[in-house]
């Protein structure tokens, strides 16, 4: 890995070019808002003149507001994409030469479903982006941002219905090669969630010896011995440490040759934040986010390969 400070001087020229565009975008904000106000006032005035009711002007005014918002969103997204393609992605490629990066798509839906962590219901909408893939020591891995949702339909009592989407999971999803051979699926999920899990899967619940681990997580596996083979006393401590590092909900499952790690995170990671000002330090922040993800492999000690699985 190459430190961000080493790349700073290389990135400065390109950053200044993008920053100039961003400053123009911010400067134009006042002009656009002024124009919008004028158009809205004109709408009400024309409506009053031709229909005797100024409130009819609300419809075109609303349309103008929506067009304004769409234009500004599109302009902002264009600058964010320019920042990403001309600064962020080259920085990541230089800073992490051992990683492959792809903006879209991220981790495949089949991996998400294979983890069996969030499959108590249907996954109706699945988006993933910012895929990082590579080897960390002996451990092959890939991770990305994932947003999985299920569709809910609600009837409104008048014979009609409305559809909306509920988030099942949003955050970082990682798939890594596990260092032990597995025959069953072991799931380690947050104890405060999964009420129905506790109710319907009592027979597969595994009670473990670490009280701190048991307070945070519930473990489920068809085979009591394999669950304990995976969750040694040391591994339980590592998982608790991982939970504390991220200070977010961490759920894991061990299946096939892999460990699946799902970390709930509301914020959009690996993206520049253009809500306030554009700074090159945002690249440094993203570097730290990537390092935090790579550290998961060290925290879980996945590179210790002393058993029969190579």
């Amino acid at each position, binding site marked *: 890995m190459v430190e961000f400070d080493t790349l700073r001087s290389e990135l400065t020229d390109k950053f200044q070019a993008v920053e100039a565009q961003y400053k123009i975008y911010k400067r134009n904000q006042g002009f656009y808002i002024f124009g919008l106000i004028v158009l809205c006032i004109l709408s009400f005035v024309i409506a009053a003149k031709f229909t005797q009711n100024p409130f009819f002007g609300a419809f075109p005014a609303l349309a103008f507001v929506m067009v304004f918002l769409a234009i500004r969103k599109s302009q902002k997204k264009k600058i964010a994409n320019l920042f990403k393609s001309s600064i962020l992605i080259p920085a990541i490629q230089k800073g992490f030469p051992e990683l492959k990066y792809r903006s879209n798509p991220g981790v495949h839906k089949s991996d998400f479903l294979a983890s069996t962590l969030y499959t108590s219901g249907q996954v109706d909408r699945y988006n993933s982006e910012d895929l990082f893939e590579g080897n960390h020591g002996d451990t092959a891995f890939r991770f990305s941002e994932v947003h999985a949702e299920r569709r809910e339909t609600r009837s409104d009592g008048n014979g009609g219905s409305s559809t909306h989407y509920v988030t099942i999971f949003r955050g970082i999803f990682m798939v890594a090669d596990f260092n*032990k051979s597995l025959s069953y699926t072991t799931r380690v999920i947050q104890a405060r969630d999964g009420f129905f899990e506790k109710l319907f899967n009592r027979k597969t619940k*595994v*009670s473990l*010896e670490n009280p701190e681990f048991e307070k945070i997580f519930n473990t489920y596996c068809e085979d*009591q*011995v*394999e*669950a*304990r*083979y995976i969750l*040694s006393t040391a591994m339980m401590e590592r998982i608790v440490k991982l939970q504390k590092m991220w200070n977010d909900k961490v759920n894991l499952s061990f299946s096939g040759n892999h460990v699946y790690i799902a970390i709930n995170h509301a914020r959009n990671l690996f993206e520049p934040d253009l809500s306030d000002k554009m700074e090159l330090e945002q690249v440094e922040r993203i570097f730290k986010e990537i390092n935090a993800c790579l550290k998961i492999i060290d925290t879980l000690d996945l590179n210790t390969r*002393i*058993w*029969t699985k190579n």
Partner: protein
Amino acid sequence: MFIPILVLVGLFILILIVIYNGLISKKNKLKSAESTIDIMFKKRHDLIPNLIETVKRYMQHEAGTLTEITKLRQALVGGTNMTTSERNNLENQLSTQISGLKLTVENYPDLKANTNFLDLQRSLNEVEEQLSAARRAYNASAVNYNNGLQMFPSNIIANMMKLEEAAFYDIPEQEKTNPNVGNLFDA
């Protein structure tokens, strides 16, 4: 009047059946956990002859340890009339000897580079890890079983069935201290 009494008696019998079946289920899970440990022990016994053959060519000065491991293995494989306590004691001694051997291998770089030995080492680590998991699973079953024997009202039925409490797998004092490698090779 007759029907409510019948319902109560039926309910009481049903509760007795549920408790009885629960105790049997716990007992069977305990037996299953114990047999899993036996399977792991057997896997370890099967690895030892190959281990001795691979190691003895390099570790001529450690003949005492290798002999001790072979003797323990023979006693365990051949000992059909051993009590569980005697068997566990011998298995614990075997664990200590194998741990000591793994430490000593550090002094033999040629052996450490031997592919057969590396494979054996991985297999042994795998078996030890699975053995540890099996013991922990057994202890969890033993807690569950003993709870059934001690807690009300299943303890009443357990006493009538003359069920005895299960002992936990415990590490004896000799294994709680780190093995003294020097002592291992004084034989």
